[in-house]
């Protein structure tokens, strides 16, 4: 996502969730979203079978 797309995502998402944001917060939110989406790309690039079970309550 480029910056305008991220800004559109931030605007739509915060409006949907009812989180009021100040203009001066936007650059940091965008930075953190960029880092997080980068990590998500890394996770999604790993192929897992359809049967893979999640670990919402994990037991070691």
């Amino acid at each position, binding site marked *: 996502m480029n910056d305008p797309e991220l800004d559109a*995502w*931030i605007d739509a*998402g*915060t409006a949907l*969730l*009812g*989180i*009021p*944001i*100040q203009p001066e*917060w936007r650059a*940091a*939110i*965008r*930075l*953190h*979203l960029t*880092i*997080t*989406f*980068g*990590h*998500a790309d*890394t*996770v*999604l690039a*790993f192929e*897992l079978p359809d049967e*893979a*079970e*999640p*670990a*919402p*309550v*994990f*037991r*070691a």
Partner: protein
Amino acid sequence: MTEPPFPTAAEIAHRVTDGALRAADVIETTLQRIAQRDPVLNSFTAVTAHRARVRAGAIDAAHRAGQRLGPLAGVPFAVKNLIDVAGLPTVAGSRINREHPPAKADATLVVRLERAGAILVGALNMGEYAYDFTGENAHDGAARNPHDPTRMTGGSSSGSGGAVAGGLVPIALGSDTNGSIRVPASFCGIFGLKPTYGRLSRAGSFPFVSSLDHLGPLARSTADLALAYDAMQGPDPYDPVCADRPIEPAMERIDAGIAGLRVAVADGYFRAGAGPEALAALDHVAAALDAHARIELPEPARARAAAYVISTAEGATLHLQRLRTRAADFDPEVRDRLIAGALVPAAFVQQAQKFRRWYRDAVQKLFDGLDAILAPATPCTAPLIGQKTFVLDGVEMPLRPNIGLYTQPISFIGLPVVAVPVVLGEGLPIGVQIIAAPWREDVALRIAHELEMRGVVYAPRPPA
């Protein structure tokens, strides 16, 4: 002249039990030291002086009456302020939670430590809502590193690191979701134990990411870690994640030596971004253990990425209502990360949880032929307070989200870790992780203890 090391919990308990020292005197000395040093270190947010004096009086009375005292008799301790202390609001480093009513009861781990004779002396500074690796806090101010007060303690268990390293208490409790015990242990030059996920009860603590949250002790010796850990073990119906396992004491075998234990050094990802001091510390510990084998963990970068995604989304969900109504009252450094976390699609989080199970199975196979893995705890020594970026693998990166590079892939699957402090030359201390198989805290503690007995690792006393 070098000052002698601060007394350990084991020494204090021994002397109180022998009658050579009164618990009341231990507490007065502790309160005096907090009053002298904490204006600089900023590790405490509340000092429970009255409670501690009452408790010390009860222990001394029990001793006079000939009653048997617990293994931590008279030992002062303090807890990260996300852990419930009866009579105090559980602020979790935030402004918002200080409006909460005081906790009605102590957290399970506080109850268990006091049952063993320890004495709570206060609550400790932390990064807001535990979403932090720096020890900075917009509301309470930054905790300061006892080895150099211009530097970070690390976080989010920042006061826990500073109070133990600064000799204010021998034992503190912290929490570790992605590295928040191991990072301050590394930067402050002390020992930290992040137990297996589900080993120690989290009942009565304010959560961050339930999927990944652990509680554990920080101390200046391995014996103190083991004493505290043993006292806190056991199932707890009030924490659904706490495992229904019997107590498996680590202290009684901590000096069993390391003969026969197979130790390897994590390679690849765990060396790639490490600074020279982190690599030197790792090599120092590996050489002492004669650990020449190198091992590649499967997909550690992806594991860290998945831990990151789960943390930000789950943490944001926890705070969603507060973000809607009180966003301006958050620490700005935390608020902006949490707002971003609220905007993460569910598909990303679910896939990260699926990957987590795959990664857990893959890493557990490594322990078929190994007992422990060594890795750096942090890529560098303590940065300066206020520092925003650092250089990782030749690239300038934001500091706050990246200090946990080496801790996140380990806590992601709940493996037990002891962080041990290394001091080389005149430099600042830095930690090395000793990572064991699930439920084998005893193995990590034995290795750490052997290193400590040989003088390879130790908690240095900071300048007065």
